């Protein structure tokens, strides 16, 4: 039974979303099912990570079809870590949603779709088959389409058109890339591809496939020239939806990039240089974009883009230290970005707006809450010893070792930009004198909520803040984990062996 543990987090999410459909009209029941289910999911994912760390990579051949022919599910340390983080963010957002999402949205199946989204994310992390990865991506985007449009406000619909178009296009490009790769190798299993692709003689077509994958995943992870859909759509849905989008959707693109470019397409200097250029420009344009925005949610949207650059930089340099930095950053970023958007939702609930020039006086009125929000903001910048600081050390070291001084400069510059953005945000929203805003009618202010709802608002933020504090102060554990993951990514032979020999 424990052999198939890796499929449990996946099945649980599927089960939850189906059960939630049967509780269609019962809002409170849905809230309870979702929170309890997410806690169980977190336990399963924790057990999976423990099993992977103690016993090595776990695999499962769907339908008992031997490795290159059937669909394989693989849980190596990288995938299992991300599944755990997904479950963690899922639990936080599920708790947060039950307070912040209005009953009307819940009645139209918010929670069911939310768990489908988490299902898609976990599936994408666990699959070892490239076409199956496409299918999980489709599950992710179709659930995110529903979540982004649910409610049907004008801005939401407009944002959804932009979000939909580019993500659909990304899927088609991804599918084209799969077609080219299948035509070249006749295989879809990623471990099998890792063996077959280096032997191919037609290097030009391999490059074409690699670039198609880069564009497809690049749109999804919002890297430099392909990110314009993100700031145009991410601020439109409710902040709970935005939290799960910002925390995980772009990261699954980054995961796919790291997986494909560390396993299948290797050792191409052209690709590496392209990735470095893309990463540097992403850092720059995301940071500058965040600087000029006045809407808090848009500021955070641009910061997502900016910080995607750190992970791509790590991937591009492709040394063990660099990859460890990228993986560490990914771990830190999932927690912190989910938290940030929940914080922006909390600020919206307190003040009724997220416009920086209208905000103010938060520190005066809510000193404890402000301190709570300060920790994630400082972790985001990477003030030592908080969590954003440690991965940057690895990235610096790797950039010096590989003599990419442009990268060194840009990592410093992007961190500085983030610092300026956060300082500006703190000054505007927390320290500035409170501007008297006209009271909005029909708006449920934070003060007027029941105490239990208020706890549901704050508990997930406290949870994720504690996790990022752990990532910061327990950095040694995370660093060990990321180094192990980086080692597994570079020496990917054990991944291949685990897939190809384990025919249970």
């Amino acid at each position, binding site marked *: 039974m424990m052999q198939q543990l890796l499929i449990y987090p996946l099945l649980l999410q599927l089960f939850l979303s189906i059960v939630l459909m049967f509780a269609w009209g019962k809002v409170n029941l849905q809230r309870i099912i979702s929170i309890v289910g997410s806690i169980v999911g977190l336990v399963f994912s924790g057990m999976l990570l423990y099993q992977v760390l103690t016993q090595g990579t776990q695999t499962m051949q769907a339908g008992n079809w031997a490795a290159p022919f059937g669909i394989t599910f693989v849980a190596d340390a990288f995938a299992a870590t991300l599944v755990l983080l997904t479950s963690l963010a899922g639990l936080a957002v599920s708790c947060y949603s039950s307070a912040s999402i209005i009953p009307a949205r819940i009645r139209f199946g918010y929670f069911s779709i939310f768990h489908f989204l988490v299902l898609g994310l976990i599936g994408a992390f666990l699959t070892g088959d490239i076409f199956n990865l496409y299918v999980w991506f489709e599950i992710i985007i179709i659930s995110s389409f529903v979540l982004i449009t649910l409610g049907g406000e004008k801005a939401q619909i407009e944002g959804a058109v932009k979000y939909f*178009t580019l993500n659909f296009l990304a899927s088609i490009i991804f599918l084209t890339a799969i077609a080219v790769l299948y035509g070249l190798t006749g295989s879809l299993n990623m471990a099998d591809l890792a063996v077959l692709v280096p032997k191919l003689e037609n290097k030009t077509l391999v490059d074409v496939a690699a670039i198609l994958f880069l564009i497809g995943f690049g749109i999804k992870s919002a890297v430099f020239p392909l990110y314009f859909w993100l700031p145009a*759509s991410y601020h439109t849905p409710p902040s709970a939806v935005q939290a799960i989008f910002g925390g995980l959707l772009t990261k699954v693109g980054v995961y796919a990039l790291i997986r494909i470019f560390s396993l299948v397409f290797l050792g191409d200097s052209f690709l590496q240089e392209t990735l470095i250029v893309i990463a540097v420009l992403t850092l720059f344009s995301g940071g500058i974009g965040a600087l000029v925005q006045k809407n808090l949610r848009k500021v955070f949207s641009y910061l997502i883009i900016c910080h995607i650059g750190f992970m791509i930089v790590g991937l591009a340099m492709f040394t063990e230290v660099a990859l460890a930095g990228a993986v560490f950053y990914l771990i830190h970023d999932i927690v912190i970005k989910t938290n940030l958007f929940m914080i922006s939702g909390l600020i919206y609930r307190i003040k009724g707006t997220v*416009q920086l020039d209208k905000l103010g006086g938060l520190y005066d009125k809510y000193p404890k809450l402000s301190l709570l929000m300060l920790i994630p903001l400082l972790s985001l910048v990477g003030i030592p010893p908080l969590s954003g600081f440690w991965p940057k050390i690895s990235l610096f070291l790797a950039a010096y070792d590989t003599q990419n001084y442009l990268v060194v400069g840009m990592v410093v510059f992007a961190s500085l930009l983030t610092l300026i953005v956060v300082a500006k945000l703190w000054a505007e929203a927390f320290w500035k004198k409170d501007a008297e805003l006209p009271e909005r009618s029909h708006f449920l202010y934070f003060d007027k909520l029941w105490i239990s709802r208020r706890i549901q608002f704050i508990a997930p933020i406290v949870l994720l803040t504690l996790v990022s504090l752990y990532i910061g102060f327990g950095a040694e554990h995370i660093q060990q984990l990321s180094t192990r993951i980086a080692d597994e990514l570079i020496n990917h032979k054990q991944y291949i062996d685990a897939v190809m020999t384990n025919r249970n």
Partner: protein
Amino acid sequence: MEFLLAIITGLLYAAGLYMMMRRSLVKLILGLIIIGNGANLLIFLLGRITKGSPPIIGEHEKLLSDIYADPVPQALILTAIVISFGLQSFAIILVKRAYKVVKTDDLDKMKATDEEV
């Protein structure tokens, strides 16, 4: 046959991209549908086309002895068609909603998400 399919695939991609760059919402969706069909044809084409030899093992044999058509691309295309069918129906409803809410089908006029609220 391959030559013809290659030409058609190219045309579909080109037509789809061209339609996507127009300003009308409906043309945008049509473009996405066309380019999706192009991708499906491409999988079919790159999976090697083998005429008239289905992958069926004869009654008195144990293995496939002859060259046979690869069944995997068909399975892939089938999956992709079903998925894109779902996405397209969503897209059509979305376009209708967008037209009702925004009261235009001109993409250039959809600027509410870029404005400061």
